[in-house]
């Protein structure tokens, strides 16, 4: 399923609910300063959000270089489009939207590039192995500790975009359902459904090997 996030911010009163009043006030003040062109405010924004944004992107891409690149793009976009931010959603919601949509866009691009490289390699243009080598590890070998986590991460990466974003924001970034709904531009009920389906799929794949022990 195609997943795209609009740049505009939607009016959702619940968005700010989980954010503490002082943090929301600070963010509003920060936005006002940014819109006035303050470089100091931009530095504060980056310092305040860089870790959260980077972690969100990293959890979707699982690649440090790509996460760094996309995180930079997010802050550049914020700098260039802050004038259009009307403050109808919280600043953090807007940032999470930019981060998740850019991360997914980056991943789609990388997948398309990989497919193209694979086909050109089939046509004899390059003898390098460009496709991912098959994983010959037997599921039983992936049971223990860290390896089971790796198996889980691999299956999270294969979830449909919206399920993956919802699952990542919930279980890695520990956002509330309301915050996730605001980021995805959907309802809390829809987020519950996305998370339910994601967990069902993951449990089926990750816990299946256990049943054969």
């Amino acid at each position, binding site marked *: 399923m195609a997943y795209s996030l609009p740049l505009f911010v939607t009016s959702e009163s619940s968005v700010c609910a989980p954010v503490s009043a002082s943090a929301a006030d600070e963010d509003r003040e920060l936005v006002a300063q940014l819109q006035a062109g303050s470089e100091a405010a931009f530095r504060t924004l980056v310092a305040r959000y860089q*870790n959260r944004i980077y972690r969100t992107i990293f959890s979707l891409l699982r690649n440090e270089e790509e996460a760094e690149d996309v995180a930079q793009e997010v802050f550049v976009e914020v700098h260039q489009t802050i004038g259009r931010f009307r403050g109808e959603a919280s600043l953090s919601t807007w940032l999470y939207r930019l981060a998740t949509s850019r991360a997914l866009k980056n991943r789609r691009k990388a997948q398309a590039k990989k497919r193209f490289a694979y086909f050109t390699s089939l046509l004899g243009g390059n003898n390098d192995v460009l496709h991912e080598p098959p994983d010959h590890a037997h599921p039983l070998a992936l049971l223990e500790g860290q390896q089971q986590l790796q198996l889980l991460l691999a299956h999270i990466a294969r979830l449909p975009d919206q399920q993956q974003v919802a699952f990542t924001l919930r279980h890695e970034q520990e956002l509330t359902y309301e915050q996730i709904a605001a980021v995805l531009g959907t309802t809390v009920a829809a987020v519950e459904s996305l998370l339910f389906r994601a967990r069902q799929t993951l449990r089926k794949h990750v816990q299946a090997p256990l049943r054969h022990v």
Partner: protein
Amino acid sequence: MSDIINRPGSDEEWEDLMRQLRNQPVAQPRPFFYARVQARLVASAGAPRQWLPAWLRQPAYAVLLGALVLALSGDGPALTSAAARYHASPPSGLKSLPPR
């Protein structure tokens, strides 16, 4: 098959896995992240604005677009009407030839 399928640990295992997921080493950007963002902003501000969209700057798309413009440029109808005119009235030199 072992008793794992029957034991009530399935939910616990899942919870344990979720705990592992949350307790992964915290990913952080490399130091001086702000400096790199600043450098990128300066680079994007200094970059010349492209007047053609990126996809059109690909040679394959440009050639395709050129071919499409040629195909739709109206040469086809013009050539057809010229041919029709030729058949309708042969050149004057042919009129003077004696009939066989």
